[in-house]
């Protein structure tokens, strides 16, 4: 990767993690990511750099229905089986 590409990868990764990379550009980034290890590395470094920003966000308990819905979503065939018995 040449210098200008590296700068570009850095910028894209930073804005992706910050959240300002949006719409088509954000989806394109997600599509090309698996084939670009350097971009992946830039991304995980930015995730590490900005992770501290997340810590002061107050935890909020989701309602109990979220876990129930999640189980239905993931394991719904099992649920149907149990109900059928």
């Amino acid at each position, binding site marked *: 990767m040449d210098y200008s590409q590296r700068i570009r990868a850095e910028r894209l990764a930073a804005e992706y993690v*910050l*959240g300002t990379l949006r719409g088509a550009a*954000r989806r394109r980034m997600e599509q090309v990511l698996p084939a670009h290890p350097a971009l992946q590395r830039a991304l995980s470094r930015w995730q*590490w750099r900005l992770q*501290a920003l*997340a810590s002061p966000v*107050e935890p909020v308990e*989701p309602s109990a229905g979220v876990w129930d819905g*999640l189980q239905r*979503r993931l394991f719904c065939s099992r649920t149907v089986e149990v109900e059928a018995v």
Partner: protein
Amino acid sequence: MNVSKPAPSERSAALAALMPLIAAGDRAAFEALYRCTCAQLFGIVLRINGERALAEEVLQEVFEAVWRAAATFDPAQAQLLTWLTSIARNRAIDSLRRRASEPVTVSRFGALGLGGEEAGEEHDLLAQHASEEPGPLDLLDRASNRHALSRCMSALTRDQRSSLALAYYQGFSHAEVASHLCQPLGTVKSWVRGGLQSLRTCLDRAANRADFAGRDR
């Protein structure tokens, strides 16, 4: 120290031990991870997408992704909480797609202090928060106080800090930040870009110094 491989905290390490189990289909391990992290992740999602019902849907998507992608989690690449936070933020930002078509001045952003005030007061408005929920700059202060971010954040201009806080905590796009701060889009883009660049240089320098001190001990 390679900056992408920080020493994992104890909590993160204990949770990370669940991941191979989850990857193997262990539902009890999955539930344990959910119980330990759902409130934290829900808080993150809810700040970005404030509509509770939608945010709960997003949270389900987050954990669905965690269940399906558990095998791809690599503890050598990232701490678990960083990995989970990234998934939560990504899903929350994706859930905002439809917000892009809405004007930024609608009432849901009222809590950030939008009103008929003069443009010169924007920063103060950003700092004061009408509701009990802390504003983006309050959160930024708390984040800054606890970490090496403190010195690095204080090296940024006030405009850079405001722009980064609105983007990170509220999930604002460049255009939304620009509209909120009553500034041209290009100006806001350069604040964001400049702020990120300074942060990068400063945080990496701090990480290298910490690594050096660690080796000295």
